[in-house]
């Protein structure tokens, strides 16, 4: 960044003494545009000495996926995005038959169970119940009086969301793949942590009268940022970052205007 061309030095009009065109010795003041010495690169020093980088919603060590960062002025946008309370989408992979103490497949084994009685239909039924109870929690924590007409209209459009602190809420779950003993879910959630998602996988296992551990948690969408906008490891350079910021700027602005 510092190697890039900085701001051109400011110019100032100064009256400098210059030898007169006539005879020698007499000095005359001539107006000339000279660069200000204070703007000289050797005086000013490098433009950026440190960068303020802020992080968006947390991502575990064992999880992967989209991680939003803000640079410089973007940190203020980060707080605004946090107050928008937009949903995040995860792909959660699970494995039936095991139960561990930290709900993931790298923990200490607690129990092994059979799982051949589980079918995709049973799993989808459990997911429907999870969605149902979380839907109720969504309406309750949004702190809207249920008796008003506007509450009804928001509920019809599906726009009721908790706009403050709330426990983790899952707005939608869907089963993407099911191949015993593995399965994969797509989860849309609010205010959650990855460990909560792993615990949810464990509870799904318990409900199906077996046990399950979580093998993979991958965030594929965080508010307006999707995996397509995210920079892979090979593009962690200045140009990649600049392009990504430019691409996302418009999206972020429209979303903030819509919500706040």
């Amino acid at each position, binding site marked *: 960044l510092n190697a890039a061309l900085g701001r051109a030095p400011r110019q100032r009009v100064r009256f400098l003494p210059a030898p007169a065109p006539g005879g020698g010795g007499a000095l005359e003041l001539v107006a000339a545009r000279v660069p200000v010495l204070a703007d000289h690169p050797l005086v000013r020093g490098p433009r950026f000495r440190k960068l303020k980088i802020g992080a968006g919603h947390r991502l575990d060590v064992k999880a992967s996926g989209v991680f939003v960062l803000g640079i410089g002025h973007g940190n203020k946008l980060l707080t605004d995005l946090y107050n928008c309370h937009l949903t995040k989408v995860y792909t959660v992979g699970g494995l039936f038959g095991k139960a561990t103490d930290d709900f993931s497949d790298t923990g200490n084994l607690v129990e092994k169970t059979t799982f051949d009685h589980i079918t995709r239909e049973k799993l989808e039924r459990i997911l429907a119940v999870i969605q149902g109870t979380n839907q109720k929690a969504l309406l309750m924590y949004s702190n809207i009086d249920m008796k008003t*007409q506007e509450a009804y209209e928001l509920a*019809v459009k*599906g726009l009721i969301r908790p706009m403050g602190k709330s426990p983790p809420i899952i707005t939608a779950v869907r089963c993407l793949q099911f191949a015993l003993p593995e399965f994969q879910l797509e989860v849309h959630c609010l205010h959650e942590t990855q460990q909560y998602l792993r615990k949810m996988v464990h509870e799904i296992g318990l409900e199906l009268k*077996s046990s399950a551990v979580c093998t993979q948690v991958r965030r594929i969408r965080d508010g307006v940022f999707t995996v397509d906008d995210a920079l892979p490891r090979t593009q962690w350079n200045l140009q990649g970052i600049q392009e990504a910021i430019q691409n996302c700027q418009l999206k972020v602005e429209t979303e903030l205007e819509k919500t706040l």
Partner: protein
Amino acid sequence: RRGLGVAVGPPSTRQLREAEEAALVFQYAGKAARRKDRVFVWGFSYSGALGVPSFVRPDAGWKKPRRIQPTPYRLETEEKISSAACGYGFTLLASTTRDITKVWGMGLNKDSQLGFQRSRRDQTKGYEYVLEPSPIPLPLEKPQQTRVLQVSCGRAHSLVLTDSEGVFTMGNNSYGQCGRKVVEDEIYSGSHLIHQLKEFDSRVVQVVCGQDHSLFRTKKGTVYACGWGADGQTGLGHYNITSVPTKLRGDIAGVNIIQVSSYGDCCLAVSDEGDVFGWGNSEYLQLASVTETTQVNVPRHLPFKIGKIKEAACAGTGNIVLTEEGNVFVWGYGILGKGPNLIETAVPEMIPPSLFGWSDFSPDIRVAHVCCGLSQFAALTNRGELFVWGKNLRGCLGTGRMEDQYFPWRVTVPGEVVDVACGVDHMVSMVRSF
């Protein structure tokens, strides 16, 4: 050489893997594990209609009487209950078993709407409040072959439909709603009389109780009615009481009716072609789309252009229909389910499917069944979720709150809801466990 005092160190990956493979495998449910059928009740309990005696008379010192059960509570039953009906303070549960006991009743029994329940203290008298599901003795000719198909309850009378022995009626008969001649000054409390009705043009396939009248639908698609008719709810062309089931004419003559419904004083019938017919009370604009009169005593066709209608249900002041596409329409008076601003309408208004869980994420959710209480509505989706809305009289909605619900709200039931029966202040649902 391993000696004492030598540390073991953390287990290596190979040791962990071997330990895991050697661990015992527990089996909680085998491949043939079947889903169990359960019954859940909620609402006002002091009448005994919930069937849990400990709510009314606590059997342990620390228990307190529970006046209202605000969330679904599991009711233990001996047999699998196939049909349930809620009346005005009492409940009937029926099972399709071939055993001698096929119907159980609980709640108010002041008019013998639950048959004669012999009191243990005094063998000549009967119980006026039945707190537990008690068997109802039906005078069947072949008790070990006949099956009970359906039960229905009104304000103070009940109907039991069997597959080969017609319809049994019991309870209050002051308006002829039990299908037998009205006896002056008859005392209904502690009565042993259960009347049997067999004279219909074909086998009866559905029985429905209104507040003080009864409707019978036969296999041929005809509808019979008896009982109080001051609001025209018997649909027989007059406003008098009828004590013998009589065939209805009017716009439904010759039409194959596939479903009848009533709970208060208004009645709706659905034909196999998707048309809906109504008669009875119209003070709350239920039939205002065809007539200005407040009582309609002949079935009239309701010309609604909302699609082919699959099912209809009547509440006390409002009506609800379900179309083939799975959309729900409401009209009438009261809390109809479209927010606090919609209080009355004569024309059916659709309830947006997004309130039942439909969204871009799950676009195949449809409403499969609708049911009405006196001022509540209930809808079941094809995923087995129960939505209720309406006046929350004594906690009958089951939402856990005491406030009225102006738009459909999910009831959390641990299982897939198969059927629901709504009463005035309580509800019963048949649920299959996961």
